[in-house]
């Protein structure tokens, strides 16, 4: 019996074929993913121990621990190969008789030792028993108590068995369509603390009065589910439940991940994965096929996992639209100033784009997103189960984390997005018109809004100019690469129809050069812009980027200016409206 986390690393061979390499690493090496205890012989002890809940409570659990090892709940995930003769030596350190049953195993479960029980041979308190069976079919299974299950399974005596197809440890089943890269366990359960308290105190409990209060995935309640495997502060609950993947890519990440869902609880749970549909490929270790043997796979964004059932799913996150700062989401985003974050915590990056990090409200205390990953909640859609003793969010929930294809934080650079911190008008001066002339709420394309002002009304002049700039603060002083500017705006006549100005004024977008202390030349963009929004996607200032980042009292400042000029006799009053401005850059 040894621990492993099963992972398959993919590399591209010269011929373009995918070569699979299986790496078996110590459990502690992999912070996420299903943690296997490899067989086919296992030594387990049924015993009592404590679990902790995120609200500070604890509950006595009965579980299976490695004999001579540390208590854990749930018990070890037993991993074997198809065709293995599986042997489980069970020592009973509980105060009453117990037994093991193996639903879905048709390979003739036999027991040596013990005495007959209703569902299986039972072992008395303090005794030993050995169960043996042949692992006939690959798939995801349960092992659990077959003695007084209403009580013992509720107390925690249930966990998972994984049978790998013979010769294909990187597949869920023998079928090549079930190849996967990584695998994740989502084991659902629920706890009535009153029952556990009664067992701990050896007092009577009426099983018909059960009322579940805690809901777990892999033995933890949200947000503990997000913590890595084997974190020391959850010493009896080793299995995390964060699903941590990268988007599909035909070359770099062609295989889906395998999600093994198991409901060892006594209630059906409506499990609801956000982010991407899951492909349902098997139930109870039986592939879902048409009578002719073809896939009968269905896609799901919410499915009941019945009590005692297992369901296998494949998941590929496909970034279908490849939305990015230069390919913005074609809908209006709310102003970030209007967003609130629960408890001042968020997994939102501040940017709607994978791999970019944006600005968050100053009240945000804890930003959990370091590299523009997408986070999606996976949770029971039953409100009472999405809570820790009624306090939400909690309970039966975890997150799907999708990292950028190139990785997160390593090898060192992260793409960040910033919106203006302030806007300064330099012309006309002095201000002669109220900004209330501006139609507020012009479309802000993509995320954060920059309402920017300018105006006009210089009676007698034949040249009329609007000139303003936005300031971005807190850009790192060094290490910035790949600085880009995004601007969308329009220029309109006052009191005229919104889009009714042709040809418009001569607009220049430019960036401040702190070494020359002037607007950099050449400008980033120069064109005539009238009453229709013109997007200037990702102009790249000439290198090096360091000259655009202020120092001294201006440390960390980047300034982007927009100037529009209207010449000639008969020039009319107009105003400029900046509807969207952001910069992006890569930084350590």
């Amino acid at each position: 019996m040894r621990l492993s986390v099963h992972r398959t690393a993919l590399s591209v061979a010269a011929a373009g074929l995918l070569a699979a390499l299986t790496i078996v690493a110590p459990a502690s090496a992999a912070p996420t993913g299903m943690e296997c205890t490899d067989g086919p012989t296992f030594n387990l002890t049924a015993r009592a121990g404590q679990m902790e809940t995120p609200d500070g409570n604890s509950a006595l659990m009965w579980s299976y621990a490695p004999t001579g090892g540390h208590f854990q709940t749930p018990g070890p995930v037993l991993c074997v190969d198809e065709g293995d003769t599986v042997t489980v030596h069970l020592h009973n350190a509980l105060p009453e008789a117990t037994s093991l049953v193996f639903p879905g195993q048709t390979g003739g479960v036999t027991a040596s030792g013990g005495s007959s029980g209703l569902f299986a041979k039972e072992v008395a308190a303090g005794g030993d028993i050995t169960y043996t069976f042949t692992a006939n079919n690959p798939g995801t299974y349960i092992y659990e108590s077959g003695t007084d299950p209403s009580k013992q399974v509720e107390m925690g005596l249930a966990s998972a068995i994984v049978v790998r197809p013979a010769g294909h440890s990187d597949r869920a089943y023998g079928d090549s369509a079930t190849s996967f890269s990584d695998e994740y366990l989502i084991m659902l359960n629920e706890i009535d603390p009153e029952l556990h308290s009664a067992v701990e105190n050896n007092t009577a409990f009426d099983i018909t009065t059960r009322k579940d209060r805690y809901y777990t995935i892999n033995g933890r309640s949200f947000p503990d589910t997000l913590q890595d495997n084997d974190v020391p502060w959850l010493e009896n609950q080793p299995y995390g439940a964060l699903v941590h993947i990268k988007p599909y890519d035909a070359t770099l990440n062609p295989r889906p991940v395998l999600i093994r869902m198991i409901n060892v609880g006594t209630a059906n749970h409506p499990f609801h994965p956000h982010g991407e549909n899951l492909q349902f490929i098997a139930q109870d270790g039986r592939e879902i096929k048409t009578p002719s043997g073809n896939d009968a796979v269905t896609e799901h964004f919410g499915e009941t996992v019945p009590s005692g059932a297992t369901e296998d799913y494949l998941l590929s996150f496909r970034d279908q639209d490849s939305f990015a700062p230069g390919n913005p989401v074609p809908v209006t985003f709310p102003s970030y100033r209007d967003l609130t974050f629960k408890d001042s915590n968020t997994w939102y990056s501040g940017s709607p784009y994978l791999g970019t990090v944006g600005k968050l409200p100053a009240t945000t205390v804890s930003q959990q997103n370091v590299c523009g990953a997408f986070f999606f909640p996976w949770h029971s859609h039953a409100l009472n189960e999405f809570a820790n003793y009624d306090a939400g969010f909690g309970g039966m929930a975890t997150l799907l984390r999708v990292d950028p294809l190139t990785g997160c934080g390593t090898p060192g650079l992260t793409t960040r997005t910033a919106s203006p911190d302030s806007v300064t008008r330099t012309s006309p001066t002095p201000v002669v018109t109220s900004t209330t002339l501006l139609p507020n709420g012009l479309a802000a394309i993509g995320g954060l809004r920059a309402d920017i002002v300018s105006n006009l009304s210089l009676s007698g002049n034949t040249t009329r100019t609007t000139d303003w700039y936005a300031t971005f603060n807190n850009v790192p002083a060094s290490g910035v690469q790949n600085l880009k500017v995004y601007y969308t705006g329009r220029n309109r006549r006052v009191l005229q129809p919104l889009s009714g100005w042709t040809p418009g004024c001569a607009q220049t977008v430019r960036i401040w050069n702190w070494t020359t202390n002037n607007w950099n030349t050449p400008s980033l963009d120069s064109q005539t812009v009238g009453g229709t929004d013109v997007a200037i996607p990702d102009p790249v200032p000439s290198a090096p980027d360091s000259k655009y980042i202020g120092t001294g009292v201006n440390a960390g400042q980047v300034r982007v200016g927009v100037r529009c000029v209207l010449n000639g006799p008969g020039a009319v009053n107009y105003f400029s409206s900046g509807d969207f401005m952001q910069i992006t850059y890569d930084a350590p």
Partner: protein
Amino acid sequence: MQALSHSHHRTATGVALRAVVLALVIGLVLSGVASARQAYEAPLARHGNVAHGKKKHKRAKHRRARAAAVSIDLCAKQGTVTLPDSTTLPTWGFVKKPPAGSCTDAGVDAQIPGPVLDVNAGDPVTVNVQNLLPDDLALDIPGIRLDAGPTSVPAGGSRTVTFTANNPGTYLYESSGDAGRQAEVGLAGALIVRPAASGQAYNAASTAYNKESMMVLSEIVPGLNNAAAQTCGSQSCLGSFEMYDYKTAATDAPQDARVSNFKPAYRLINGKAYPQIPTINAAAGDRVLLRYVNAGSEQATTTMLGTDARMVGRGASPLGAPFDFVAETFPAGSTGDAIVTVPASAASGTKFPIYDRHLELFNGSATGLGGRIRFIEVP
């Protein structure tokens, strides 16, 4: 002993009996022979099995069964059920009227669940319901298009409901009266519509079986049953109170009970709780069709040990892609047809447990296991 019963005879027209494959069995014993509540005690007789020495009505194997008019006379009456913890509770139930008898005859007792109605696809079916209960009831068979006309049966009155059983499958019949509470206290049962080919659940040969058994799931909320036995004005108290409860004791007043805190004390298969539930005897290699009917108000999930099952139909519809399962949920009001193949290697005496995976394995507050536990055993 009575298994599924027909209240009618069919004529096997122009079809020879086959010696090897005998009549589709379902032990066609005429009704009224046994105590009504024993209706489900035995698993359905094995295909070709003439054991038990009982009078057996042989139905010829029809290659193409010819539709024949079927007339079923049902009585709706009050009765009682005695549970394994010795609790006796009032119930309401259906029972077949003896061909030459009356609904009020001794021994014509309400059954929990109602008798299995067993017809062939294409049969024009006439159901005559005589209502001896204090409340109006209304017959409903989800999935069956009843012929035009009222389905309500007034208290003390009768009603004839007709339909043509077009599609093979397993159905639930129930009373929708008293806001559904009549079904919960027992006015519900199973209807089987058989395809032309005998020994199959549906027309597809892949749904063949050689043994079948009902798995009618229901539960008992004592307060609700007690309400049914009490009088509120001119009716029972079943529909009178706002809501009913809970695993109240048999003596609890109905007003103490509310369905808003619905908490059954007993969960049943074919009207019985473990250890009353009879074992299904099946030989190694047998294909046992389990006709699940969830006549209760809760989701019901069973699991099994040592084998698996193939779901070939749900809601009386054959599945285009049957799937195998160990644990599966049957939503309240739904039906499912699952075939368990007894492993060919199973030795005599091998037991395959099938049990409630919600683990409500109790009978009231009695100690020890109860609820929905059933075994398939190799004799």
